């Protein structure tokens, strides 16, 4: 069984023409012997095979080949060779020779232009010479009348068949072109509609944000009055002896406070979603923060007969928006209190020293009703309490946890949950002490711009399944890529435009805008069309993806090795392709970045030696471009520090110097750097060459030393 391949239309067309004309051409040849002579045996064999066997054979060869067009052109050359043989063996009868050659010549020019035509003439000549050499040149130029008629018939048949095939081809082409034009018009129309829809959505979103801001004020003002007056009434009722009224007024006040809490939560969430939530980080003493939280929630926790304990070690201080962190902790403790009766609620805080700075972990543990694994899956989603009856029994918007997690993300951390039904739940909030650990997972909420990207080629993951995207992000981050997730097609397209990723991983099955549509829109955008897109799907339809412009195709579940292999294939190995540029002048850094990125290097920047060292701690580039004159820590000191760390031979270093170096300075640099080049006197090609030769010589050197 042959697999169905795309066969060039010329193959089929030539087959039809050959089937009709080859036998006739053979007959024409035999007609020369009409006068009673017997043709030689080899000529009979040749004529018969040419007339009968050649057409299907040529077709079969072309059809089964990898490149049917090219093979068919060689078939045509073979035709010419045969006609050469034909001409020589029929003693150069003038008319038939001329007509058969003319027909083939036209055919050659049509399919392959001058080159094929010349090749045809050459083949024809070879055919003539071979036969002439074998049987001797004995040109007669004459042919019997019958042969002439048959030749004319063959020629007519050939031109007719050829012209008909051409006509059919042209019609098909026109149809295709019309269809294509219609599709293009349709796509353009769709794009215009989408652009309009996007503009409308933007306007609507802005209007929504304005509305919410106003709403926030308008809703809170009367509520404040309700709460305030009910408090006033309580006081007056107590004073005037109307104590019986107090519980009812108290209910109004509680309901008012509850409503205010709900409004605040909804507004906060809307603000986060509209990107309007601003953080005000400040340096805070963590123990003090915990103390404040404790005094706020303690009465609430004790109300249901629970014991409340706080366990914390040495916590130090952290840089954080304290209002938001407090809100998160109070929310989690409030939940713990809500779902626990006659049990224990514990707040544990600790400080962990990690590679990427210190982290603070706040653990809120209760011995309450707990959650099933199924409930745990939805607990952070908006308006999804563990189940509907919970909402009736315990109240709440179901927004508290969503909000808490969003806040934790904004603060650079996350909230995790461990729980078992009937035993209790433990929520753990982890927040970086520095207040800035823009983990890739949060990138969708706080998109990084190109300049801020933390080294490494950026990979955009467009996948509605947050879990799948998170797993891939982790794999990629571990390998030094910078992964940015987007949970839907629209976000994906927007992010692609913003961050210009090196590659896009695109899930096929997504709600609203599916992967194929996203792919089509990426490819339609001139700015994005060049970015390789790897499709990810549960079904293997590679061919479809590749025709639509996908660079590659992965089938879910994606194995780590396959994923990394695919990435390497399309954007190269991250470690071998990043360059650390250390220069205090931003213009120079920008220029170098542009030059290097054009040559597919990824660039990590540092403004002086100290920053350079910090970057080196984070990851190891393939090479370092180093300026010498810098504030804080200059290039020489940087090299000295590297040597002290015993690091100096690990990465090849190229010095970019703006000044003439003295003999002593050059001596200082010797053995420490691969090359010194003068600033402003090189093109990106030269830079690329220098980098490559530095890498190569460095490899030799380190191998020599190893």
């Amino acid at each position: 069984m042959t697999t169905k391949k795309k066969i060039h239309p010329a193959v089929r067309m030539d087959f039809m023409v050959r089937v009709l004309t080859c036998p006739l051409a053979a007959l024409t040849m035999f007609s020369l012997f009409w006068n009673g002579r017997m043709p030689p045996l080899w000529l009979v064999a040749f004529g018969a095979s040419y007339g009968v066997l050649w057409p299907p054979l040529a077709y079969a060869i072309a059809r089964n080949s990898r490149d049917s067009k090219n093979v068919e052109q060689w078939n045509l050359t073979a035709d010419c060779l045969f006609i050469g043989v034909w001409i020589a063996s029929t003693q150069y009868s003038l008319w038939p020779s001329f007509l058969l050659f003319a027909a083939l010549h036209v055919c050659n020019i049509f399919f392959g232009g001058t080159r094929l035509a010349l090749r045809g003439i050459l083949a024809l000549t070879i055919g003539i010479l071979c036969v002439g050499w074998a049987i001797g040149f004995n040109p007669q130029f004459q042919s019997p009348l019958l042969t002439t008629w048959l030749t004319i018939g063959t020629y007519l048949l050939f031109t007719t068949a050829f012209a008909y095939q051409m006509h059919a081809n042209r019609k098909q082409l026109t149809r295709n072109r019309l269809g294509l034009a219609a599709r293009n018009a349709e796509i353009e129309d769709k794009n215009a509609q989408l652009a309009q829809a996007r503009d409308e959505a933007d306007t609507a979103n802005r209007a929504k944000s304005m509305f919410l801001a106003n709403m926030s004020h308008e809703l809170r003002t009367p509520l404040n009055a309700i709460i305030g007056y009910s408090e006033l009434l309580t006081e007056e009722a107590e004073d005037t002896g109307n104590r019986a009224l107090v519980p009812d007024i108290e209910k109004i006040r509680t309901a008012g406070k509850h409503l205010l809490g709900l409004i605040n939560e909804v507004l906060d969430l809307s603000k986060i979603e509209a990107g309007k939530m601003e953080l005000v980080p400040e340096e805070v003493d963590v123990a003090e923060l915990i103390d404040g939280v404790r005094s706020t929630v303690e009465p609430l926790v004790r109300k249901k007969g629970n014991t409340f304990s706080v366990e914390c070690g040495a916590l130090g201080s952290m840089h954080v928006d304290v209002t938001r962190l407090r809100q998160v902790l109070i929310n989690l403790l409030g939940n713990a209190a809500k779902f626990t009766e006659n049990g224990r609620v514990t707040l544990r805080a600790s400080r962990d020293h990690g590679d990427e700075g210190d982290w603070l972990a706040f653990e809120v543990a209760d011995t309450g009703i707990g959650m099933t694994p199924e409930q745990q899956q939805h607990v952070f989603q908006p308006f999804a309490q563990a189940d509907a009856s919970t909402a009736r029994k315990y109240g709440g918007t179901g927004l508290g946890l969503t909000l808490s997690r969003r806040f934790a993300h904004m603060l650079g951390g996350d909230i995790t949950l461990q729980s078992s039904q009937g035993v209790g739940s433990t929520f753990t909030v982890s927040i970086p002490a520095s207040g800035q650990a823009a983990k890739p997972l949060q990138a969708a909420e706080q998109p990084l711009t190109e300049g801020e990207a933390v080294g490494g080629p950026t990979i955009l993951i467009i996948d509605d399944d947050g879990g799948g995207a998170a797993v891939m992000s982790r794999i990629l981050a571990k390998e030094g890529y910078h992964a940015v997730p987007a949970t839907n097609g629209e976000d994906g397209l927007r992010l692609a435009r913003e961050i210009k990723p090196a590659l896009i991983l695109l899930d096929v099955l997504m709600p609203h805008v599916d992967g194929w549509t996203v792919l089509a829109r990426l490819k339609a955008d001139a700015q994005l069309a060049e970015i390789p897109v790897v499709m990810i799907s549960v079904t293997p339809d590679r061919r479809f993806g590749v025709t639509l412009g996908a660079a590659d195709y992965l089938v879910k579940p994606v194995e780590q090795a396959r994923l990394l292999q695919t990435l390497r294939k399309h954007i190269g190995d991250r470690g071998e392709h990043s360059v650390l540029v250390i220069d205090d002048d931003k213009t120079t850094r920008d220029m170098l970045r542009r030059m290097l990125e054009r040559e597919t290097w990824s660039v990590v920047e540092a403004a002086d030696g100290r920053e350079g060292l910090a970057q080196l701690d984070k990851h190891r580039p393939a090479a370092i471009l180093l300026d010498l004159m810098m504030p804080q820590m200059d290039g020489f000191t940087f090299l000295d520090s590297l040597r002290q760390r015993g690091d100096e031979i690990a990465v090849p270093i190229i010095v970019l110097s703006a000044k003439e170096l003295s003999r002593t300075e050059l001596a200082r640099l010797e053995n420490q750097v691969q090359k010194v080049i003068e600033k402003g006197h090189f093109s990106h090609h030269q830079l690329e060459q220098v980098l490559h030769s530095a890498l190569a010589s460095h490899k030799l050197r380190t191998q020599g030393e190893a």
Partner: protein
Amino acid sequence: MKILLVEDNEMNRDMLSRRLQRRGHEVLIAVDGAEALRVAGEEQPELVLMDLSLPVMDGWEATGRMKADPQTASIPIIALTAHAMGADRERALAAGCDDFDTKPIDMERLTGKIAALVPDGAT
């Protein structure tokens, strides 16, 4: 204690002034920043509670002017605002407010802040 309450919202003004009066304070009222400056100069209150978003002259400006005038500079000012935003607090403190509280007013919290600023104020 003589307290100047600057608040443009009638209900909030009525509510807060009555609650302060119940606690034995004498409450003076101003409905905008300009009036607040005038009353403060004439009546010399011991404390000012200042709403920030006010008509005519807003609370930040009124605070700044009050603190610039030697006659009223020593009077402590507590800013009150409906926005619990950090930026508002920073702005209020920068304008010269001595303390800051957010609405809805928690009477316990507010009296605590008042007592801290005017320790010998009779209640």
